[in-house]
């Protein structure tokens, strides 16, 4: 690739040199008729002063050299290639030295507008060399199309020895284009094309203004110097075309000051363009502000501080988590870095094998590499901190989720156990009860007390069945699964030894873990009331408030309840916390005990 670049540079330099030598040796008179028709001038025979020939040569050479340098330094950007193409197109379209060569004349006529379109392409796509807007892309495509189409009439009909230009001296040594068909007056066509050209320049100026207005601040500061020069160039070109339209015989282009202005504009374009790309400003002031700002930046706001310092509000921050080998945002959500050519650029901060963070930003920021590096270094500690925060948050989320999963899995297991007991042992014992009943009937009342024995066995079995039923109910209440919280709480109230009033229960079904937690909270609370509170009655209320199920159990007992470690209440608190809920017990004084729990059900439903 480097050899290709060197080759391009050498070819460009050789071509420029040939043009210079040709110009100075005075092949001008004959050649200029070709140039006349194409772009730059109308009027009389004109000999290019040597000083201007040298200046033109130098500008072309400098531009080609800068283009190759930009190409070398920034292979990702197409700007370098376009910067090389820009003066080469100009040289080829101005076959001043090769006026006797039909091939050179043909190329020159075909590429007459090419240099101007390449310049527009270069400027509208600066600094990445890729368009950010479909409108820009479309405009440049139309520009290339216009350049090709507008060459056609000249390629077919143009003859420098035309009698339609009465002020031209005879030009016997001029060559016709290879594609020449017939000899016609193309002056009218040229006027039309010049008119279209002026319209295109106006459109181009509007697009350039739009690009500058819409750019993020850093992109604007990168592109602004170039844009100023580009406006000047456009204005100059438009003036030339306009003058040709309104006053075809004016000879403004013969003015040497006018020609010098063209040379300077070309030089200014290539210099501002390359300066932006090769010598990006350090932005020390912005970094100093960043250092101060980071002092007062709360965790989670480093992105905003960096975005301000770098002048890119669209900046995104990816924090590298080494264990996961992935980038996440500050909330711990995974962040995919954009692919190449996605219109976004990525700068990785820290060593390549152990990055700290990645900045996803506007590609224009690449023109400020030192600002990027300095800002990255200044924010290093804050980013390290931010990364730890993100990692912690992620781990906390995972622990929370796994805790909820453990509770849910436990509930599921209890439900299964209850079903197994119900479908298995309980059914067999019930059948056994029927069998004993039948046996007692078969034996009859007077068979050596066998009937009495069987009766006792039946009673024993009934007791066992009742215990089994309570055990199963304690493991998991089937009524909760099948009929919901309301009926389940009613059975709890019915079984409680003291009067329990249920004041509110929601009608709707809620996620199973939430219903189970609410049920067990009430169950444990009522058991505690019965055991310790010396209460005469208890109230239970379950309501839905703002996406949470609020459970309240109040009694009028002696108070003094507290969720000690290992107690039933502490276990319940764990279960409630696992669902991101809360549980408080107000048991001070002699106003009884009030248990208050909240269970968010919207979150539980997502799990």
């Amino acid at each position, binding site marked *: 690739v480097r050899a290709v670049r060197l080759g391009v540079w050498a070819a460009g330099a050789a071509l420029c040199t040939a043009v210079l030598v040709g110009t100075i040796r005075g092949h001008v008179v004959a050649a200029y008729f070709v140039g006349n028709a194409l772009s730059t001038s109308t009027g009389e025979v004109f000999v290019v002063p040597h000083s201007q020939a040298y200046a033109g040569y130098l500008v072309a050479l400098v531009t080609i050299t800068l283009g190759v340098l930009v190409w070398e330094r920034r292979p990702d950007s197409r700007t370098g290639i376009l910067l090389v193409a820009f003066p080469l197109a100009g040289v080829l379209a101005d076959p001043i030295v090769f006026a006797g060569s039909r091939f050179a004349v043909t190329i020159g006529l075909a590429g007459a507008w090419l240099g101007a379109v390449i310049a527009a392409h270069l400027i509208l796509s600066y600094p990445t060399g890729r368009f950010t807007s479909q409108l820009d892309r479309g405009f440049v495509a139309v520009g290339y199309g216009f350049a090709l189409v507008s060459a056609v009439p000249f390629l077919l009909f143009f003859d420098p020895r035309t009698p339609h230009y009465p002020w031209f001296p005879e030009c016997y040594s001029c060559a016709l284009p290879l594609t020449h068909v017939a000899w016609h007056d193309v002056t009218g066509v040229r006027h039309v094309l010049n008119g279209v050209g002026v319209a295109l320049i106006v459109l181009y100026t509007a697009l350039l203004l739009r690009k500058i207005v819409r750019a993020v601040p850093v992109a604007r500061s990168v592109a602004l110097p170039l844009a100023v020069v580009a406006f000047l160039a456009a204005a100059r070109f438009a003036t030339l075309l306009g003058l040709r339209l309104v006053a075809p015989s004016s000879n403004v282009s013969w003015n040497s000051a006018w020609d010098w202005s063209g040379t300077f504009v070309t030089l200014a374009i290539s210099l501002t363009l390359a300066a932006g790309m090769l010598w990006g400003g350090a932005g020390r002031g912005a970094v100093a502000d960043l250092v101060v700002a980071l002092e007062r930046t709360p965790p989670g706001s480093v992105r905003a501080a960096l975005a301000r310092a770098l002048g890119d509000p669209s900046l995104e921050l990816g924090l590298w988590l080494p264990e996961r080998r992935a980038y996440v945002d500050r909330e711990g959500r995974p962040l995919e870095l954009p692919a190449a050519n996605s219109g976004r650029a990525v700068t990785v901060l820290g060593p390549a094998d152990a990055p700290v963070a990645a900045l996803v930003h506007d590609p224009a920021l690449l023109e400020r590499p030192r600002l990027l590096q300095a800002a990255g270094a200044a924010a290093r500690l804050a980013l390290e901190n931010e990364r730890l925060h993100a990692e912690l948050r992620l781990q906390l989320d995972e622990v929370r989720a796994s805790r909820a999963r453990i509770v849910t899995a436990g509930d599921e297991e209890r439900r299964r156990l209850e079903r197994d007991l119900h479908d298995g042992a309980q059914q067999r014992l019930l059948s056994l009860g*029927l069998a004993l009943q039948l046996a007692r009937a078969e034996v009859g009342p007077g068979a050596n007390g066998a009937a009495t024995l069987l009766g006792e066995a039946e009673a024993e079995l009934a007791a066992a069945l009742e215990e089994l039923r309570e055990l199963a109910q304690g493991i998991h209440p089937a009524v909760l699964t099948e009929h919901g919280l309301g009926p389940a709480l009613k059975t709890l109230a019915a079984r409680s030894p003291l009067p329990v009033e249920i004041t509110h229960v929601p009608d709707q079904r809620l996620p199973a873990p939430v219903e189970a937690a609410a049920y067990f909270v009430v169950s444990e609370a009522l058991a505690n009331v019965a055991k310790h509170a010396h209460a005469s009655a208890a109230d239970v209320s379950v309501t839905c408030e703002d996406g949470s199920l609020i459970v309240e159990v109040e009694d009028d007992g002696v108070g003094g309840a507290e969720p000690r470690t290992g107690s039933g209440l502490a276990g319940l608190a764990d279960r409630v916390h696992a669902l991101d809920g809360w549980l408080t017990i107000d048991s001070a004084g002699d106003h009884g005990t009030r248990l208050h729990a909240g269970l968010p059900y919207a979150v539980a439903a997502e799990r």
Partner: protein
Amino acid sequence: MRRRVLVVDDHPSFRRFATRLLQSGGFEVVGEAEDGASALAAARRLQPELVLLDVLLPDMSGLAVAEALARDSHHPRVLLVSSRSASELGAALEESPAAGFLTKSELTAEALAAFADGAP
């Protein structure tokens, strides 16, 4: 005349002993079914006077079977039975068109006779 009964339960041993109990109580067990769909088919075919119907069936709830039977032109008296208590089964049981409910541990020859005689 012996009263014709259909026994519906998904546990074979329960069906067997319940059948024996019913027979010893003077009922005629005309058929057995192990789930809701076959219970409905059997009831329409055999036209029993009584159906001993488990609440928890594998394919549908016994309560739904009772409702479907109540809509039939020949609607037998339904005695729902369950290993769960009435309070565990909740409001749906109270709204059921079934004529009576017993927990399985309350199921005795006497209770069946009382139900057949018209007591709830």
